[in-house]
């Protein structure tokens, strides 16, 4: 088990990279997922159709396939996803700015895929708000946006937060795929680096990596339990 201590820096840097991509993908997926959710509940049929199509595609494809499209499809189309080299952000998240684009490709795939699930979690929260609430708001003359902002969303949040948390936990685990699509040095790729290239025994390395993921996911799960208990008391 000495590998855990001797190679701590390798685990730590893998952990840091995975944390970075998860943080960025979570923000991206929350924003994109919110937009898609608004499309899906919009009163305008074509917008609804776009939102539904998005969810049907990205929720039903395996993440591996989405990763393939991002890592091999985008370059084939001549894109290196340079729009993600956001000035300022690429100082904290240095991989955003590197010439090797696979971090950006991985981020795009993870964001697109997770956004579909974020959308559905948000929408289930909206559906949990009794229809009469939105009807009363409409009958007062509130517009669709005002209705969402002042009446529906503040009430849907309570019902959305736990499923949203589960989506983010799933996303953290899904991020383990990026190592197989050219991203060097994330937590899951650390295994390959230490065992194949470094000749370390497999089991201690796997245990070290598992601990790394659990450090990210378990506190999130505990936080969700706390929120759920607080809501149960408030009700």
């Amino acid at each position, binding site marked *: 088990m000495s590998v855990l201590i001797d190679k701590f820096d390798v685990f730590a840097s893998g952990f840091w990279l995975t944390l970075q991509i998860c943080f960025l993908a979570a923000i991206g997926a929350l924003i994109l997922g919110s937009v898609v959710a608004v499309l899906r509940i919009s*009163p305008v049929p074509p917008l609804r159709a776009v939102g539904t199509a998005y969810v049907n595609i990205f929720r039903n494809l395996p993440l591996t396939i989405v990763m393939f499209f991002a890592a091999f499809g985008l370059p084939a189309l001549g894109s290196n996803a340079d729009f993600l080299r956001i000035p300022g952000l690429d100082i904290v998240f240095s991989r955003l700015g590197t010439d090797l684009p696979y971090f950006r490709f991985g981020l795009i795939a993870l964001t697109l895929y997770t956004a579909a699930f974020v959308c559905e979690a948000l929408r289930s929260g909206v559906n949990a708000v*009794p229809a*009469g*609430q939105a*009807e*009363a*708001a*409409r*009958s*007062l*003359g*509130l*517009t669709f946006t*005002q209705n969402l902002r*002042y*009446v529906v969303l*503040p*009430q849907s949040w309570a019902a959305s937060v736990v499923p949203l948390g589960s989506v983010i936990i799933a996303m953290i685990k899904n991020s383990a795929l990026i190592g197989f699509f050219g991203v060097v040095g994330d937590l899951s790729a650390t295994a390959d680096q230490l065992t194949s290239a470094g000749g370390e025994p497999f089991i201690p390395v796997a245990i070290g990596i598992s601990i790394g993921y659990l450090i990210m996911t378990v506190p999130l799960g505990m936080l969700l339990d706390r929120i759920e208990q607080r809501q149960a008391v408030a009700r």
Partner: protein
Amino acid sequence: MTTGTVDDVTTSEPLIVLESVNKWFGPLHVLDNVSLSVGRGEVVVVIGPSGSGKSTLCRTINRLEPITSGSITFDGQPLPAEGRALAKLRSEVGMVFQSFNLFAHKTILQNVTLGPIKVRREKPAAARERGLALLDRVGIANQADKFPAQLSGGQQQRVAIARALAMQPKAMLFDEPTSALDPEMVGEVLDVMTSLAREGMTMVVVTHEMGFARHAANRVVFMADGQLVEDAPPTEFFANPRSERAKDFLSKILTH
């Protein structure tokens, strides 16, 4: 003002006009060629058996239910399609629901001031002042900072009426406002509605409260199977219903 202009007011065009309105829910014909006009200041009570389409009729007037064919005009304007114009029209038509539908996450006062502040862009202080006056009027000013769930059904429904009145509507729609209430709370809600009627508010009231229909309505409209079967002053309707359906309905509800 001359007597001539007074006559003009009473003969001026009705506020709400439904013409040959049809509404289908899939294969179900819920409104069958319904025509109805409601004058300014008139109180029309809609009664009829369950499933006769009376709630749907009420909800078509502010387009919470879109209609399949026919036309509805409010204050001379045809109901606009979904959008800002419709939102504006809805702000001029108050609606009170069977299940109150108070905003559960907002206090009583916030419920009453949300519309004036966000839709009418009134100053919060002014909206608050009028909100409190309205709550006082319906007898719940001392509960202004509570949440809806802390109030009884009767109190919630009176708040819902105050919320609708805060928009200073031209007409009020009541969709079975007392059907979800415990019996001892029905009176307090009907009292508020009766005083509104006396002040000249234009009202369309779907209800099973025959007492209210008798003493507050200008006209009683009887619906059955999606059709508007009878339209008469209350004294005439209750004393001498013309149709078999109305006779049958009244015999069932008035014998006990």
